[in-house]
């Protein structure tokens, strides 16, 4: 069963006449992991701050679990967990004290739950050390722990992989997938590290200069970006291009790229064979999320 947890409708935000966000809409259902990607300065963190009520919304609406964040803040935010920018914790306290402090602010978070979460993020051995002695990676883990302490159904993570080692990133990925699956959490995760998101997000939103340029399932984005691109390895690329015509382009002396429908490929092959051009291989050009992303955004100009 999927139900909408977070709905952002046409968010606008200006700062001194400069529009930072234009018409940003997002939707997250339970069990979704939405990758929120975009280059620096595109408006990712601002969007997250509007969702969490940390900044005033210019126009538009944020609805969390049916409550408007502007009109009913306390109820809307009650089942949200978040890390914004860095995991800012009280450095002069131990990890456990930090969690204890957070737990006091929610009903129904007991010692057992705290210990459970500590185990979940793998901080059992260092939890009684002061946070100032933690590495950035450990602080990230503690940040995740404080965010999920009260069993939220919406988890918002701003650049959570910052400072994590590959092992940590793998752990975090597994944890998030588990939370989405088992607890039916909706997760919004922003990152530039696109390769990280690719492997476990089921949806992406791409933001560029304050505008959402694409929202869809991950597979669709990739497919669209790569649709009809084939790379053919031949003995003479120049000759092959003359045979095929405008739809092709030479990559180097022995490779050409062909933009064409799938159904058309056998005919192209036939043409080439008839002209005595040798074909060594044909492969569909499946691009990574990163390539898809650059294709969509075409780079970001910070203005």
């Amino acid at each position: 069963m999927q139900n909408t947890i977070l709905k952002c409708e046409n968010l606008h935000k200006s700062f001194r006449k400069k529009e930072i966000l234009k018409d940003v809409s997002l939707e997250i259902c339970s069990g979704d992991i939405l990758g929120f990607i975009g280059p620096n300065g595109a408006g990712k963190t601002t969007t997250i701050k509007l969702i969490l009520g940390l900044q005033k919304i210019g126009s538009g609406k944020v609805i969390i679990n049916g409550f408007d964040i502007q009109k009913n803040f306390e109820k809307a935010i009650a089942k949200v967990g978040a890390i914004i920018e860095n995991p800012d914790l009280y450095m002069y306290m131990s990890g456990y004290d930090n969690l204890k402090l957070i737990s006091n602010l929610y009903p129904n978070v007991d010692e057992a739950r705290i210990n459970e979460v500590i185990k979940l993020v793998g901080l059992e051995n260092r939890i009684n050390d002061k946070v100032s002695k933690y590495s950035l990676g450990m602080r990230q883990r503690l940040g995740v722990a404080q965010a999920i302490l009260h069993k939220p159904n919406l988890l918002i993570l701003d650049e959570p992989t910052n400072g994590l080692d590959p092992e940590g990133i793998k752990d975090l990925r597994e944890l998030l997938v588990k939370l989405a699956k088992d607890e039916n959490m909706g997760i919004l995760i922003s990152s530039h590290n696109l390769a990280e998101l690719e492997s476990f997000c089921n949806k992406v939103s791409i933001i560029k200069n304050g505008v959402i340029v694409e929202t869809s399932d991950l597979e669709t984005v990739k497919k669209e970006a790569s649709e009809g691109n084939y790379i053919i390895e031949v003995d003479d690329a120049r000759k092959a291009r003359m045979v095929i015509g405008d739809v092709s382009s030479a990559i180097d002396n022995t490779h050409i790229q062909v933009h064409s429908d799938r159904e058309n490929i056998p005919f192209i092959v036939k043409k080439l064979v008839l002209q005595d051009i040798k074909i060594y291989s044909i492969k569909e050009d499946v691009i990574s999320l990163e390539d898809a992303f650059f294709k969509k955004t075409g780079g970001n100009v910070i203005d």
Partner: protein
Amino acid sequence: MINLIGNELKKIFKKKTIYILLIIIVGYIILSNIMIKVTDNGLQYYYYDESDIKYIESYLSELDPNNPSEYPDFASFKRQLETLTLTQKYGNKSWQAYIINSKLIGYIDTMIEYEYSNGVTEAEYNEAKKAYDEALGKLDSDDWKYFANQDLELANASIKEQKKLLETAEDQDTINSIKQTIANLETEKRVNEWRLEKDISYAPSFLNNAINQYYMYQTSLNEYINTDIETLATDELSYYKENLENASLNKYYIENNISLDSNSRNTFINLFANYELFILVVGIVIAGSIVSEEFNRGTIKLLLVKPYNRIKILLSKFIVCLIILVLTIAFIYAFQLVAGGIIDGFDGMTTDAIVYNFDTNKVETINIFVYVGLIGLCKLPMYILLTALAFTCGTIFTNTALAVSVPFLGYIASSLINQFALYYNIKQVIYFVTPNWDLSCYLFGGSPLFEGLTPIFSIAICVIYLIVMLVLDCIVFKKRDIKNI
């Protein structure tokens, strides 16, 4: 909201700041109690150095008493040498030291004069010598009452003389002048009667000091003997009241034989005058950092995404500041009591505080613990307003350094503002906080700094300023966009 308050308290008590401040306060209180104890009661006595005598002796040997131009210097040094030598003989804390340096100076001057001038007969010299020797003999036989009796007789004789003059005096100015002289003589007489009656010698002691103080303040009061008090201007009235208060209090000590010479008691009774700065340091440092620090460290985001609206978060922080303020006052109150008691003894604590009530015009006693608590309660508006100022600066500017320094500057400037307004007679200042935030001026019928101020008015002004600051805080905090940190 209780949860928020509990959390804020935990954050403060997990930080080192408060403990460092407490250690400094504890150290200061202990040190100042020890210092007061070792510096000997603060009672006055004659201080001199051994080298002074040698210096004077060497100087004297170079002067020629027979040379008229050098004689004045010679006489002056000779007198100093004589008094110093005598003081040294009896010790500078003896009753004799006081007599030597006051009454005996006259005898000594006469002796020097007679010794070195030619026109003095043997008989005259012998008579002076006899009087001087008699006085010296009284010093030796420890008979201080001799001098008191002498003064008393003199005063009585003078009073009789003046009263005769009064009968024949005709114009009002002369009558007034004589009346004042008689009043001063009566004071002199009373002081000496007390000495004899209560057995209070001239040696440095609390009661001896009380007698001297009484004499000083009562003589000042005597200046108003011919004046209608009702017609006095504000500043003159406050001067009159100050004299009246001190004269009455010292009279009370003497008549009831009360020696308030316990150092720990004095420190405790002046608790807020002595340790006010420490109360403010803790209050202001905590209030100035409680909001701004969260902004500077970025932890404000953590707090603001919790299911509490911002007003609740802000107000619970302010409540915590007030709790810390009250705890600090309680801590200092209790610690001075204990530390002072251990260092200097708890004896003084059994004597009530003695105050002069201007409403009833009587000296009243009040339990010492209640008295100090009452003073604290009266000063609380000032502490709360300065704490609130730190809190406001911290919330609006999110800058801890600014938030801590502004209230201190305000505190330092507050008395200056009052003085300035008094000097230039700026009446509007009564709508400002500085003349209103210390209610202790109203205690025991006391009068405020400016005319027209009443306790209710002062409390109202303080409450209005507090509410304005808090409303401002709430608006700013509520509307603030949390920028990238």
